């Protein structure tokens, strides 16, 4: 019996979170797991907080992750990694893109962007894997590849062969972007922390 595992994807609308969670789900299905994925996006089309709950195991019942039981959180934006703190526990692993996207109240000078977010997580005993995915993607010449870099990092912690992910990316990503996405995935997967 494989116990049900929980992956939480979070970030800001427009960062490619849904594709990332989709590729991961598909890969886990091909590896033989039952998978449920639940997407939560607010009313706004752009700029709002986005989260996706992905659960896999032999038989997954609830579509939602219980507070305190995330195995891996993949945060596409720095501040967002902290928003879901109640879902984490001391053995959670947080993969965080260190890119900052300012919330409206910060952008207009009414509130400030918190400092030391990574430390806030670490001091609670959470393992943090910071990734400068935005700069990595820029160097690859495609800023939209941030999501595949993060999937690459995540893949190192999942019971799925690399080839399965590559196969899924080939099928899921638009033809013109397949190569760059595979490259991004591999860069993420090969990162050392």
């Amino acid at each position, binding site marked *: 019996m*494989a116990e049900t595992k929980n992956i939480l994807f979070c970030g*800001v609308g427009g960062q490619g979170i849904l594709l990332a969670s989709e590729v991961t*789900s*598909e890969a886990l*299905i*091909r590896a*033989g*797991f*039952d*998978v*449920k*994925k*639940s*997407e*939560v996006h*607010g*009313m*706004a*089309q*752009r*700029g*709002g*907080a986005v989260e996706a709950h992905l659960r896999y195991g*032999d038989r*997954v*019942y*609830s*579509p*939602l992750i*219980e*507070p*305190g039981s995330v195995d891996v959180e993949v945060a596409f934006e720095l*501040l967002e990694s*902290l*928003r879901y*703190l*109640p*879902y*984490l*526990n001391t053995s959670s692993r947080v993969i965080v893109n260190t890119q900052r996207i*300012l*919330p*409206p*109240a*910060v*952008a*207009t*000078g009414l*509130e400030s*962007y*918190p400092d030391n977010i990574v430390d*806030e997580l670490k001091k*609670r005993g959470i393992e943090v894997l910071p990734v400068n995915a935005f700069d990595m993607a820029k160097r690859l010449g495609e800023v939209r590849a941030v999501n595949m870099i993060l999937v690459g990092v995540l893949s190192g912690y999942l019971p799925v062969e690399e080839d399965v992910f590559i196969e899924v990316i080939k099928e899921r990503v638009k033809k013109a972007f397949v190569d760059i996405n595979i490259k991004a995935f591999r860069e993420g997967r090969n990162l050392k922390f």
Partner: protein
Amino acid sequence: MQKNKDLRKIAFLSGNEAFALGASESAVRVASAYPGTPSTEILETLSTYKDIYTEWAPNEKVALEVALGASIAGVRAMASMKHVGLNVAADPLFTASYTGVRGGLVVIVADDPQMHSSQNEQDSRNYAMASKIPMLEPSEPEECRAFIREAFRISEEFDTPVLVRTTTRVSHVKGIVYPERKKKRSVDAGLVKMPEKFVMLPAHARKRRIFIEERLRKLKEFAETFSSNRIEWGDNETGFITSGVSYLYVKEAFPGASVLKLALVYPLPERMIKEFARKVKRLYIVEELDPFIELHVKAMGVKCIGKEIIPSYYELNTAQLKEAVIGEKKEIFPSVNIPLRPPVMCPGCPHRGIFYNLSRLKVFVTGDIGCYTLGALKPLSAMDTCICMGAGIGNALGIEKALGEDALGKVVAVIGDSTFVHSGITPLIDIVYNRGFTTVIILDNRTTAMTGHQPNPATGRTAMGTETVELDIAALCRAIGVKNVVTINPHDIDNTYRVIREEIKRPEPSVIISRAPCALLPEVRKAKRPGYTVIEETCTGCRICLKLGCPAIDWVKIDRDEAKRRGREKQKGYARISAVLCNGCGECEMVCKFDAIVEEGQDGRD
């Protein structure tokens, strides 16, 4: 870990996609819907199937009437809507219960516990009982597919419309689905005159009324043996009766317990429930929202625990169930206070120009539902009511009738294009007919933006992607009898201000059509306009551009020395425009009194 072996035989679908698949497998011919979260993707997915006629109806009542018409013509038909949509469609629903069907008729209704994107919470199971129509409730995507097949079978076998209830966490969750072969259905499409069945004159209706009782009796019998109503035996200490997504939370929280999972939530299998209750020591009813199953079970004289410990509002979840039933509470990290990311109008949104001016005019705005409801939030803060689709226009007239002349110049109704067609036309007729003087602003952004850009009658496109006759909103308003109908471009801030100010003063009805496409429409995105930029040295830090609430404009703080250097000691900062986010609508340029905002490339730099 064995079941995914043949990947060709499985699909990973959302509940809504699975509903569409189930409908296609059931050989549905006609499907009509009005968009509404969380139901929208059902019809969107269906419209990608080739052999089904799909349409966006102007509202849910029409959608159901179209589906019923198709059923009367002998084909299988479906209507889908969100919970509040069923209020609109309730009129035909209650009488469709009397007529029954020819081709199978299924109505999917999507409830939204927790109000993720709705103005209220409703438990549509109450409609099943009130209209005496059977209702199925799936828990996960594979059941969404399978239950649609069951629903059509039940519909035809028992001569009844069938309701299928879903909730946000069923519709928007993806899971593994096992597609089946399409049903071959001998089509008896055609016109058959059956006045006693379809003409609900009192004399006919009285006969059908008796038929309904007989049908319910048969359905109750059916419920006892229906294989999807099932008992999963575990220990006999605790038993749960549950359905829908709540079943999944129960299984997650109490894997060893006995569970009676109801697929048919109306009518209920009384013998099965009593039998289950007898064999467990403590019986719990777990259901989201109303104590629907619970009241029935209690009425059977069965002892059970339900809403005493389980909330009757918002969504349920596994942790909450564990706490309620066995008092188990997990220590979790408390959340930290960090800046929120509330929904905002997009950069370049055409609604902004209207609400910015309504805010300046300090009028009382009776609003409505759509993306433009965001006009109620800071910094625009220019909406004072929002009740249900179409309500704003009637509300405005009511306010005027209550206050008389005092209201002149002080009240404005706003309504989106899709909402206007949905239910804004009849209240506009009321204004003209009963001699109101309301000003109505119709926000024609060329789409139904809120629910993800569905075409509507005013866009000239159909759900299936074909071109069609475009509803001429201005001509329609004139035909109703509104003499003053003006069309404006909301991005032209100054003209918009002038026009609204003039029209609200008029002691007779007027309609302002604010016409500019949604900034997210593909044609707007592709037509790249030059963006705007702030000349830092010219910006005085007056913050007026921030009052537009545009996400592309942010604020850079400066200290006193820096302010001195700029020669404006009191200046606290300056505005900045993100080149990535700016869509070039130009509204900020118009509101800036210091000419500090210019088209990119015009600031003397490159």
